[in-house]
């Protein structure tokens, strides 16, 4: 489970995230929408412990990220917008290496099976990652998240730049992880994907979470209209 409690992050005078309160329960997929610079990536980075909050608290499965960074990482898996792997190792070697860093060990057959389950073509399993497309690298990332048996998944625009087929495969993998009870927080620009895979949708604007919706309660078209309205209307000034 993920929790952000009165979370703020400022850089100098600029509030990247402002008083954010957010909760992602087990088996939920929370999709964060927002324009560039809205604070989505900063929120993910705060959950990952890559940056310290200016105020508030971030919790992963009840553990405070700021004070128990390494402990919380045992529960987390992370896939950034452009997942980069070691280019001169093969897909299976990268998977084995990162599993090792996470304290997990699998034999070769298990690793191959995981990669194939995540949609990587068998002929690429033993190919250097330098020859992988972005979609193939993302699949290795999903395989890693599964292999780590993480209960929390943090995704930063994971389908950005993927073709529709690869995006669809990615969504299916997310849903399969949802079925296993993984709590997912995903920053994305893809409204359609957010509606299709998400259980909850949050819209961020200038560091604030201005709306939080149940995904089932809205259609894609309504979401698009709502999103565009939110982006167009000036943020109300505090009195």
């Amino acid at each position, binding site marked *: 489970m993920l929790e952000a409690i009165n979370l703020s992050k400022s850089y100098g005078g600029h509030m990247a995230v402002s008083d954010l309160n957010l909760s992602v329960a087990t088996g939920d997929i929370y999709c964060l929408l927002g324009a560039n610079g809205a604070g989505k990536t900063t929120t993910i980075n705060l959950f990952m412990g890559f940056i310290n909050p200016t105020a508030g608290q971030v919790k992963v499965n009840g553990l405070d990220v700021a004070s128990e*960074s390494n402990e919380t990482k045992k529960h987390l898996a992370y896939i950034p917008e452009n*997942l*980069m792997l070691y280019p001169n190792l093969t897909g299976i070697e990268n998977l084995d290496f990162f599993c090792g*860093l996470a304290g997990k060990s699998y034999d070769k057959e298990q690793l191959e099976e995981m990669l194939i389950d995540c949609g990587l073509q068998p002929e690429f399993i033993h190919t250097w990652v330098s020859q992988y497309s972005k979609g193939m690298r993302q699949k290795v990332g999903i395989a890693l998240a599964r292999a780590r048996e993480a209960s929390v998944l943090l995704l930063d625009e994971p389908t950005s730049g993927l073709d529709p087929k690869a995006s669809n495969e990615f969504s299916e993998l997310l849903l399969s992880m949802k079925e296993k009870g993984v709590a997912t927080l995903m920053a994305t620009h893809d409204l359609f994907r957010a509606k299709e895979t998400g259980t909850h949708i949050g819209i961020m604007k200038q560091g604030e979470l201005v709306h939080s919706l149940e995904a089932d309660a809205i259609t894609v078209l309504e979401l698009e209209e709502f999103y565009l309205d939110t982006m167009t209307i000036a943020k109300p000034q505090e009195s």
Partner: protein
Amino acid sequence: MKTPNSSRYHFRYEFISLLRQRWLQFLGFTLLLLVVFSLYNGKQKVDLRMGTINEAIATVKEKDSLGVILLDSIEAGHTVSVPRWYMPNKPNVMGYNYPRVAAMPADNMAMIATGQSDIYSHYVKPTMYGESFELNFTELSNPVQLMFGSFDLSFVLIYLLPLIVIAFAYNILSQEREQGILSLVASHPISLYNWLLQKAFLRYIILAGILIVLLLVTLPSVGVSLFADIGKTSTLLLLTLGYLLFWFLLAFLINLRGKSSANNAVTLIAWWIALVLLLPSSINQTANSLFPVPSRARLVNELRVVNVEAEKKADELLASFLRDHPELAGHEGGSQGWKEYFASQDLIRKEIQPVLDEYEVSLQRQQAWVDNLRFISPALLLQGALNEVSGTSTKHYKNYRQQVSDFSIAWRDFFMPLVFRGEDFTKAMMADLPGFTYQPPAGNSTSTANMIAIMVYCGLLLGGGLVWSRKRSSRALMPA
């Protein structure tokens, strides 16, 4: 499912990655080339040195054989058809024309570091009169200037090895950050500091392993007997490992700042310039400025003046000399000219001694200055230590000079009574002629002290890194 040790995975895949990037092949080939070429160069110098010494010894032996034949003939009452100045029965002729070779043979490990060997003589033939050995042995230019001139193994280790370390380790953290891999690495439950230290350590082990294997294979091929001098071999290997560790730890610390690869490379090169080039040359310059050595021209001039003065009062000098050496007085035979000459030489030695002392004191001050300041640069520490291991240090040459000086006095003192007593040199005396065998100075205090100092440097860098890593969060290593 097993719970593995993440370090094992890190080492394994880092090694595979380096292998596939051709780093190991590059390091192996480059180091092989450098080590073989530098040892070959060192061997050439040693061979040249030993060649000239052996040639001089052969010449002396040849002359001795001729001298023995002549002595046999003279002692048998035959007339010999050689000029007067080749007659070995005259002690002044024997003392001048039939000298011994006072040689400093190359050490077992001399090819490692040229050290001072390219500025000092390796053999002399002290004679009863003629050249002033003090002049020959007093190095009038600062040896530090010539300290770093040869492409020998010490040059490779001191100058080039740090550059290889810099190329190998300047981006051990920044590369991952710039490739975008670091965020994935940092999402795992590991300490980025430990992870970075492991990377640096693995690279250190690889480079050290290649270097040690190369040295152990190539040194015997140039005539170094590893087991005959196991102490020196171990010292050489430990010094190399210590110096290598220093540069890796420095690279580790520079990487810890979390800057870009370009910034790390420039910073490390700046450190290399400072520690390997600027500090040694600054020490040299300050040694010259603070403790200037009087000019050779002045010494030669003073020597001439003293010579002229001595010739003018040759009679008085002889009387004075005989007063100082009563054991040589009262003998009628012998050449008056030679007696006056030796008496004047005694005065000349006394007269020029203050000037020589002035040189000696200045040189000693320079060397003391350089010695004391060597601790500010690991490069100087390694150079000093390698020179000692190779038997080419200033200490070795000072020691050799003293031995030659003692021998030249013994040589002169052997013949002087014969000259003053007007006695002939005989074949029977050949066996009693003073001989010279070089005794290298005992101990390896410099290399031990320098090795400890290099390890202290390593300890400071490692300690500094640990303190820094505790004070700063791992987040400081992450991309902004």
